[in-house]
Structure formats: C-alpha cells, structure tokens
C-alpha cells in the first residue's frame, strides 16, 4: 500500500544523522520534524533567517516577529541564532546545510528537479527552492510517485521548467525510495505491500531494479 504522508516523513527522518543541520521544505518535509529519532540531535534551518527552529508556540507565546519560511509562527530552540536573509542564504548556498528535504512535481534520471512552475498555471515563484537545491550536497525529494491521473513523476527528462539541474540523488515517493546515479533511478526500497512491478509500471524514467528490493519497515 502506498505510504501515507506520515510514513514518508518517518522514512525521511531515518536519513537524519546526529549533528545534522537540516532544512525542511513546506508540506510533507515539514512533518519530518515530528519524527526525529530520540537518540540524535538535529538543528532545523529556516531560510527566512533562523537556525535552531523550535516547535510551534503555545497560545501565549505567539509572536508575529518569530516565523518560519512557511510564514507559520514558531519558536526558537535554546541555542538558536537569528540573522538576515543574506546570511541565511550564505549558509544554504555555501553548502553548510547537511540535508535539505523538499517536494517536487518531477524528477529525472539526470537528477534534474522541477518543482516551482507549471506553464499555463499561475506562477507564484520559486522562493528559496532554487537556492536550496543549488546549495546542498545532500537532498531528499519527497513526492507522490505518479500524478492523480497516473502519470509518472520520475522521468527520463523533466517536462516542466527546472528548479535545479543535476542536483538530486535521493527520491522518496509514496511507493519507493530511489537513488539517482549514472543516468538512472535505482530502486532501493519499496513501500510495504507494493510490488516491484507496480513501481516499474509507474516509473517512466530508466529504472534499475536490484535483485533484492526490501520493503520499508515501520
């Protein structure tokens, strides 16, 4: 069965390592913060200028001057630092963030990602996404494997305008965890109860299927 949003977040959280600085995009990536393993410390970076993002505030802690990149009211964790947008993106673009998790419309076998613009629809802008994909060595894309109409989002070449070129190496969908290398998706794990055949059917881009593809354990 396809993974739930929470299950995707739980699987992503396993990629976190002790001492990681992590930027979590809006949507499913944000949920990852709820599943950080107890035995590790990570520090969350919010690109509007906060390193060490804490949980949402209690009612009496709400502060209009303390928000995250999703414009939600948040708190600062003990030991946080707050800075300008230029400093924040110096961190991001300078490669100091250990892991970035973000959503996408499409990913392809070259590691290209399209996540910000659907021609013909209203274009709201890329925000910090282009900076994040250009700045991080280590990026996990989370998305559904196929659209509601059944069209694969894992392609040979992205059809939509790119957010970044040749920058994605890891994709977690509702069906599978895949790595991108040497011009192909490599199927590393599958959602519990999802067959390799289903993943093959829903992956338009070149797919390499190893002999053994374990199920993701929950």
């Amino acid at each position, binding site marked *: 069965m396809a993974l739930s949003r929470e299950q995707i977040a739980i699987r992503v959280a396993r990629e976190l390592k002790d001492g990681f600085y992590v930027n979590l995009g809006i949507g499913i990536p944000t949920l990852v913060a709820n599943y950080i393993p107890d035995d590790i410390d990570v520090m969350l970076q919010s690109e509007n200028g906060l390193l060490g993002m804490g949980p949402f505030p*209690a009612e009496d802690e709400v502060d209009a001057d303390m928000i995250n990149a999703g414009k939600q009211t948040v708190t600062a964790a003990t030991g946080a630092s*707050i800075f300008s947008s230029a400093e924040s993106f110096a961190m991001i673009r300078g490669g100091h963030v250990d892991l970035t998790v973000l959503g996408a419309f499409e990913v392809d076998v070259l590691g290209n990602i399209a996540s910000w613009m659907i021609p013909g629809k209203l274009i709201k802008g890329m925000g*910090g996404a282009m*900076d994040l994909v250009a*700045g991080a060595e280590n990026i996990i894309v989370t998305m559904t494997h196929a659209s509601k109409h059944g069209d694969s989002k894992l392609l040979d070449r992205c059809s939509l305008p790119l957010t970044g070129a040749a920058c994605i190496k890891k994709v977690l969908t509702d069906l599978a965890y895949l790595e991108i290398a040497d011009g192909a998706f490599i199927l590393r794990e599958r959602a519990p109860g999802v067959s390799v055949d289903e993943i093959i059917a829903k992956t338009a881009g070149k797919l390499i299927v190893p002999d053994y593809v374990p199920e993701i354990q929950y």
Partner: protein
Amino acid sequence: MAGFNKIVDSYEAAMAGLEDGMTVLSGGFGLCGIPENLIAQIKKSGVTNLTVVSNNCGIDGFGLGILLEDRQIKKMIASYVGENALFESQLLANELEVELTPQGTLAEKMRAGGAGIPAFYTATGYGTPVGDGKEVRVFSGRSYILEEAITGDFAIVKGWKADKFGNVIYRNTAQNFNPLAATAGKITVVEVEEIVEPGELDPAHIHTPGIYVDRVIKGNFEKRIEQRTVRAAQ
C-alpha cells in the same frame, strides 16, 4: 547643529522625494517585519509606476498588497508572490510586470548593491529559466550564472529599535531582508517601534549601522500574522 539626527516626525517627511517611476526596496518576509506604515504612506502619496523589490508582495488589503489597489506598482521583483487575488488578476491582465528571482539571489543582489559589487556568480538558477540569457561561467568544474546587483531610489525598512544616528536593531525573524534593503537605497527610511538614546544599543550588536540610514521614524504597528500556528495545550 543637525549633525546626525535622522529622526523625522511625520510619514510625509519620511517618504518625501518619492516620485513616479522610482524603484523602492522593501524589507520583510511575508508580513513579518514589513514597513507597514511606510507602505501606507506610499499609497497615500499616490505615486505610480513604481518598481518594487521585496521578497513578497503582501496580501489583499495589507502590506505591499495595498499598492496594487490603485495600480501604483508597474513592476515587482520578488521570489514568491500571488498570496493575493488582486496581484493575480493584474498579472493575468498584463497590468503588472513580475521578475521572479530566487530568494537567496534576491538577498545577495541587495547586499551587493549596497556593498559596491555590481555583479556576482551563483550556482542558483543555473540550468533553469532564471538562468536564461545570463552569462554562464565554470569555476572549479561547476557552472554558475552571473547576477547583477540591485539598488533603489528608496529603501523602506522596519526595525525594532533605533537611535537618532540611524543605528538599528531588528527583533527576531523580523530581521530578514531589512538590513539588506537598508544598505541599497539612495534614501533609506527606517520605521521602528522604539527610539532609544545613542549608546543604548550595544555597538557590537547593531544590525544596521547608521551610515546606511537617512531617516528614522517611530511608528505604531499592527504586525499582522499570516499563518498563526500553535501547538496543542499540554
């Protein structure tokens, strides 16, 4: 002697000299740390054909969104827009020009504008529509695009506390683009919640040194919250 006393007493005086066709840089991220009264003064002044540079364009009826009501904005340079219906309708009707710029590039462009750097290379946007028509250059095997600095005729900035010399500190994440806009305006206007005596701000912890600031005004702020999010009570 007037010396370094940059305090003005009215919003008219704060925005004096703003004319049709000028470029205005604004601090703020979403509705956080926006110079809301300076924006309201721009609306009141009725100037038109503005180019506005800001990460976002406010919402319907608040922040930079109110400058859309009388079509005062000709061109918007931003990283993320469309949180308001009026923006969308003017955009679709070709009444508004939009130049979408990655958030980090936008921040760096303003900083560069203030720092005398006319252009810089960045990996952000390479291979995307943002890179179209821009010079590509390879450094150490990686491709980068050339991005030019931004400066403005005016910069409008929201601070927390300032002294009369124009030294400013920002509160929490209301800092965002404010100190960058402050460096890059020919005339930089800062509105703050509190004016303090010179010396009250720790010299080593001033976010915007007064050299960048031309006018300071004390305002009252609504500080509207865009996404009020709280955790469940324990």
